[in-house]
């Protein structure tokens, strides 16, 4: 009974796992192979996009009396496309990483099925219309992410991984308790059905509080971000790229979906979430500014940048429709731009660290002469993070600012301004170190060309997205805005 489009969607969802298992058995040796095998996925999603906008793609899977609902709307299709692009980039980069960083063969092989599982989980989260399916996706994602983080096997990686694991497990129990309360009170797990019957009473609020707590923990939103930075400091570069770009955002996606459906009018809570976001922007920026290893700068920057996404809550709850539309577009644009740029930045930082053999900022001296391409990539990715034109970050900031001004919520304008200045401060601190001409070094490792090319393309995509933003945003608007 499955239509061709539905079949294709599920093939596109499951294919990464199958490819990952294949790669486990026989790890790819050339980026070309990866690009060819993975390149089909975005094409499939592009074909599905117009159909998703029409709302034609939804359905349910029945398993022993239990039906799991799913739907593919414009937003999920775009996120799926984004996931596949970042996947493609990370996979291609991982091939080069293996040649340059020489990890143990067996450990490297384990990367692939975990990557496949992670992408399957992300796909499930984007299409899930059901708390149970969301739960399964969330858990699969969390476990695959922990597994990937642990691949380096050093003591600090293990400690970071254990911390992440414990946080993630407890976070998912908080989530499960919230789901329990919702199921107990309203008797359904299907999102649309739940939205139809739910009333904003005490139980719903408490359930949402628990769900939110669990998700904030998984999304590393301030003040529950403690696990994120240590985890990145020791992880492999392609893993960090995938994690910083998408994994933390999946939790945010679930969070906003739930709030929008279940408590759309809760202005106080939304304001509180916005304040958390604002604090995240400031705190993440400050810590990134003070960090002294390159990877920590990038990881703290993730903490800060996630804060911008949280500003959607106060701009969505109880505001005029035009404000909500602006903020809605801004957030997804920001998410996409940040995903591409952050993946690029992790890879560029990884390249710099791999070539120089140093991880501290002072070790970057002279790189502007010796490794201009990696540094340039870092800079272009930073343009998006700083929200300078014409990047996606800029266009998103413009929209966010417009929404804040239009709704009279001035505080968020202040947050945007300070966040931008802090981002510029830490980015240019890195660039400044690279401009230092003294202390010449001569032992730079040369990396495979593809390792420079992949992040450069990602960074350019993030910048270009700002100019062609109307294409995804018009799809978003068609697909319905709150």
């Amino acid at each position: 009974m499955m239509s061709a489009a539905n079949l294709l969607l599920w093939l596109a969802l499951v294919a990464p796992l199958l490819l990952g298992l294949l790669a486990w058995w026989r790890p790819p040796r050339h980026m070309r192979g990866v690009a060819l095998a993975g390149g089909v996925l975005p094409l499939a999603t592009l074909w599905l996009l117009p159909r998703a906008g029409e709302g034609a793609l939804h359905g349910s899977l029945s398993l022993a009396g239990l039906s799991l609902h799913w739907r593919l709307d414009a937003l999920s299709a775009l996120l799926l496309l984004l996931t596949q692009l970042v996947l493609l980039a990370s996979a291609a980069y991982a091939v080069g990483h293996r040649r340059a960083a020489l990890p143990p063969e067996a450990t490297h092989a384990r990367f692939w099925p975990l990557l496949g599982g992670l992408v399957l989980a992300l796909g499930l989260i984007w299409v899930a219309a059901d708390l149970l399916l969301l739960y399964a996706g969330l858990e699969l994602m969390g476990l695959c992410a922990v597994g990937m983080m642990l691949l380096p096997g050093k003591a600090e990686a293990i400690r970071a991984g254990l911390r992440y694991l414990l946080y993630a497990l407890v976070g998912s129990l908080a989530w499960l308790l919230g789901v329990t309360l919702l199921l107990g009170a309203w008797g359904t797990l299907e999102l649309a059905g739940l939205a139809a019957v739910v009333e904003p009473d005490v139980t719903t609020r408490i359930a949402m509080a628990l769900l939110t707590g669990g998700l904030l923990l998984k999304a590393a939103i301030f003040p529950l971000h403690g696990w994120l930075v240590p985890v990145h400091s020791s992880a492999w570069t392609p893993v960090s790229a995938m994690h910083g770009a998408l994994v933390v955002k999946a939790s945010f996606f679930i969070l906003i979906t739930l709030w929008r459906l279940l408590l759309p009018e809760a202005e106080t809570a939304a304001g509180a979430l916005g304040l958390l976001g604002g604090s995240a922007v400031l705190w993440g920026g400050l810590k990134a500014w003070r960090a002294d290893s390159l990877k920590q700068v990038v990881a703290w920057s993730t903490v800060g940048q996630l804060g911008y996404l949280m500003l959607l809550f106060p701009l969505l709850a109880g505001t005029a429709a035009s404000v909500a539309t602006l903020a809605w577009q801004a957030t997804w644009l920001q998410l996409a731009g940040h995903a591409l740029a952050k993946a690029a930045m992790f890879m560029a930082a990884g390249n710099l660290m791999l070539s120089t053999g140093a991880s501290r900022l002072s070790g970057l001296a002279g790189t502007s002469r010796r490794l201009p391409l990696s540094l340039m990539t870092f800079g272009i990715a930073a343009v998006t993070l700083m929200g300078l034109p014409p990047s996606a970050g800029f266009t998103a900031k413009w929209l966010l600012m417009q929404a804040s001004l239009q709704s009279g919520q001035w505080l968020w304008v202040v947050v945007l301004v300070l966040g931008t200045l802090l981002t510029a401060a830490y980015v240019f601190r890195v660039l400044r170190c690279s401009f230092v001409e003294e202390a010449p070094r001569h032992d730079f490792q040369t990396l495979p060309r593809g390792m420079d090319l992949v992040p450069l393309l990602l960074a350019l995509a993030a910048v270009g997205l700002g100019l062609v933003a109307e294409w995804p945003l018009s799809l978003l608007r068609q697909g319905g805005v709150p």
Partner: protein
Amino acid sequence: MTSITLILLALLCLIDRHLRRACLAFIVFALVMSYTWWQLSVPWLAVVEALLGALLTGTALLHALGRAGDVPRLPQRDATKQRVGEAPARWFAALAWLSLAGLALVGLLRSGRLPLEGDADPTLMPAGLLVMALGLWAFSHHRHLLRRLLAFNVLGSGVFLLLAGLAGPGPQVQGLILVGLAVALVGSVLGVMLLRRLYALEGSVTLEPEGDP
């Protein structure tokens, strides 16, 4: 009756500093959980619980203490010292969690909307709440990673009990519990593997580096 047994076993499992005994207590606890599902007439879930919860998770936890190859054995007793007033944020989060859950249950009972079916055990909910409280306490209190893993498993079981008590043993509840059990198993296995590696590399059994205040 089963509820009281569950609470006692959870308590036993969480306060015992002798780790092997604590793990054994957890296995018995999981078996009683399995019996609970049997009583609720979901036999397949009982089998899954016995298999995933008791057999596999239990084995994984015991494996942490066992001897495997040339890896040094973990000490059999938890010798870490607990300090009063440590990690206030953790305690705060645990208290908030518990009070929120309690409040929500009271709200639900008051509203009278609970679809309590005839065959549902009325003691499941309070038992779940208590088991959850024990798990939360242990998770915030202990520093030994194996004990924290135990606490996490107990906490999870508490949530399952609450789930079954609130919503009855429908297919959706079974689905949720099934996913939860699988996650707990994979999480425990990962955690145990990591703990062994950490101990082998650094001789530490806690998240805080050894010698850290």
